[in-house]
């Protein structure tokens, strides 16, 4: 996607205003407000392109109250890429109206530098420095830290004392004669849920893979989703450099958002053929966790681990962005003692959506409550998923609703079954 809003003109013009998206948008479902539905988003972007409206502060709410969950796209006959049009609108907003300094700081200073980011995370978690906590509050993705942030308190149960990258130094990474796998470390798993990353690596190694931990930075999705394309591209370039350093057949990440965005890198560089080709070469090797296991086979399970009903929540970024739907279910069904049950509306967004649950807490909670209601119906003891944002949001939901359900990444369940 480029710097000119007119590039999405054909895409917004494809919307024929049938209004059918009203039946599928989790936000419209709550607000019943045309501003929040795909038809409204497309009309807004169109009115900006055609010069009927001028971009201004007034566009902030309509543009940013979208989960980018693609439920509208999946159910739209002409398959209008509304999520893309919304991001294009946000990009225009960021260019012309501006973005808060805090966001700029996050996207341009923190995310490109994991060491600085790590320091910041520790400070924010401790919550002493008010400047930083204020920053944390402004930064959606820092919902993970919760501390001093009354409303989202509870989104993080326990912050790790050591990040995954620190732990990785002492982990066994060489599984033998199998494939070489480049492990792309997502921020969520590095900083907040390192146990998941550890489980993933352990499973890969058990399966015989030689794991290379990539020296990557944030994939860039938070910046992209916010409309800061410049920052997203800068992060993507760093990652392309890092990934090209590793000679591996597969680029694997257990974060559904990272895998989705890595696969979309070519679109990010649409305007520069050379970089686009580079991005395409990498993108074709990217695999999510279950996507990889379903192809490459699980290490042989020993029958330990959870026995009973397990269900699965589809992260938007796996199901609708990548079409990864069957693989996680297949992996779960293959675990001994697991009775897989399907959850109603399993692919409905849980309301985490990047920073959405901090910036739009109330609406996000309504979306989450519906998810919990569906979860209750399954009577499952474990809810599995494959994205850190979803994991944190769903754990919060389970606690809020007092459900006796463990929320786990698929890789954690596989590890337990194989140990």
């Amino acid at each position: 996607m480029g710097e000119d809003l007119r590039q999405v003109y054909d895409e917004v013009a494809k919307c024929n205003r049938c209004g059918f998206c009203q039946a599928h948008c989790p936000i419209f479902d709550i607000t019943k407000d045309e501003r929040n539905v795909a038809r409204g988003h497309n009309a807004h972007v169109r009115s900006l392109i055609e010069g009927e409206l001028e971009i201004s502060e007034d566009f902030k709410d309509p543009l940013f109250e979208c989960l980018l969950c693609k439920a509208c796209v999946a159910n739209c006959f002409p398959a209008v890429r509304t999520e893309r049009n919304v991001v294009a609108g946000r990009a225009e907003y960021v260019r012309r109206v501006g973005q808060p300094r805090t966001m700029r700081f996050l996207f341009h200073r923190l995310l490109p530098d994991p060491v600085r980011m790590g320091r910041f995370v520790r400070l924010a978690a401790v919550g002493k420095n008010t400047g930083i906590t204020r920053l944390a509050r402004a930064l959606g993705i820092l919902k993970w830290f919760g501390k001093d942030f009354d409303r989202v308190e509870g989104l993080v149960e326990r912050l790790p004392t050591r990040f995954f990258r620190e732990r990785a130094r002492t982990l066994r990474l060489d599984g033998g004669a199998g494939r070489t796998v480049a492990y792309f470390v997502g921020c969520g798993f590095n900083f907040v849920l390192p146990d998941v990353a550890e489980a993933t690596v352990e499973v890969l190694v058990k399966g015989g893979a030689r794991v290379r931990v990539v020296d990557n930075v944030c994939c860039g999705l938070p910046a992209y989703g916010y409309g800061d394309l410049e920052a997203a591209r800068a992060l993507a370039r760093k990652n392309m450099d890092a990934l090209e350093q590793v000679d591996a057949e597969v680029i694997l990440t257990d974060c559904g958002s990272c895998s989705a965005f890595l696969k979309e890198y070519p679109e990010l560089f649409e305007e520069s053929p050379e970089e686009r080709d580079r991005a395409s070469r990498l993108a074709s090797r990217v695999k999510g966790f279950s996507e990889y296991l379903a192809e490459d086979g699980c290490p042989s399970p020993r029958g330990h681990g959870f026995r009973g009903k397990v269900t699965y929540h589809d992260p938007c970024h796996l199901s609708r962005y990548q079409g990864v739907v069957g693989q996680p279910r297949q992996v779960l069904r293959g675990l001994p003692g697991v009775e897989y049950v399907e959850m109603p509306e399993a692919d409905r967004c849980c309301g985490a959506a990047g920073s959405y649950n901090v910036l739009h807490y109330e609406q996000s909670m309504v979306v989450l409550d519906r998810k919990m209601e569906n979860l209750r119906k399954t009577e499952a003891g474990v809810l599995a998923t494959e994205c850190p944002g979803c994991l944190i949001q769903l754990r919060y939901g389970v606690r809020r609703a007092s459900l006796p359900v463990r929320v786990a990444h698929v890789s954690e369940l596989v590890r337990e079954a194989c140990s």
Partner: protein
Amino acid sequence: MARDALVAELERIVGRENVRSKPVDLAVYGYDAGLATGRPRAVVFVQTTEQVAQVVKTLYKKGVPYLARGAGTNLSGGTVPPDGGVVIETARMNRILEIDLENQQALVEPGVFNLTLQNALAPHGYYYAPDPASQKVSTMGGNVGENSGGPHCLKYGVTSNHVLGLEVVLPSGEVVWLGGRAPDTPGPDLVGLFVGAEGTLGIATKILVRIMRAPERVVTMLAIFESLESAGQTVSDIIAEGIIPATLEIMDNLVIRAVEESVHAGYPTDADAVLIIELDGLADGMDEQADRIMELCEKNGVVSARKAKDATERAELWAGRKGAFGAVARLRPSYLVCDGTVPRTQLPAALAAVREVGRKYDLMIGNVFHAGDGNLHPLILFDARDPDEMARVHKAGSEILKICAELGGTISGEHGIGTEKLKEMAFVFRRADIEFMRAIKAALDPKNLCNPGKVLPEELDAALAA
């Protein structure tokens, strides 16, 4: 500053958070699923009858035009606001108030989606018969406004056949009940007058509908023909046999190809017509009817025919039809649905004429229609950003409706007149007819504020001369 005063007054009635007046907010309330656009002065989200009544009273006093809006999926400009008008949005007025199985009635607020009601009834073994293809998003209020129909209306009739009573806020702001729970209310059929008036006679705030027991059995069949004529002949033969299926739907080649591309319903892309037949009712005798229909298909040279074995297969057969409008919409960015109706026996003539119109104006036209009741839906495809093409589309649309009228049919099966077919009213009504409708409108809405400019052509002479 009169504008601010009005907004402030509306805010007092419904609360600040339920009134919108910034340009950015108004920009998304100026369109519906049709082609016309406008720009309202304010949007008001209402939640109770009292709020609607107060809002209407206020607007009446100030002489400000307004309209009721449900989901804005009508195809004829019905919810395109007159400039400076107020949109009264009923989407948040969406409770199902009562389901009375013993008396086979349900009472709903206008913002309830048609499908939401169906889903609430299904566990009880009941359903509401009108099933517009837009049922998952169109509201009961909108269905009443447009007198909507659907594939199953061949056997069960349209919305007006299923509405028993209405609570209505009149243009004066008074609240009245039309019809009611008793099977027949004395006096003229005022519910009938209101249903299909496209919100020009008042705003429905409660809707009492008839609900029916789900049929004991449903049989769905899909037959593929080499020509539209033989599909059409099969439809005539079935009905001549005395069989009334719940549904008789035909799609032509252009639609078949588009559907195949998007839904992969398994239709052969070289077929000229797909006919969907659905029987419902008592299980007894249904197999014999289905066999007889198969014979009639054979007689007309069917290429292949299938009968759904279970609910999943049934859904598969329907997937193509339900996705038809949208699938065709994929081919070009915009479409115009001409919702003309002709007597069933005139269908072949009408289809041939439509094809001719397409050639004449060099436009892509697809047909997907309720063959059982002669309701054509030629879909003209185009790109609204091309002014030359737009002009041809409007001419072609009008010409198709004229053809329907001349073949003894009418200009709207179910999508209404709105602003988009005003001119064409003259194809089917005489001056006296329209004057009579105007007199009714004027009696109820003397200031002409309630969805003005819809249904009745203001420039009658010009329309009649056209």
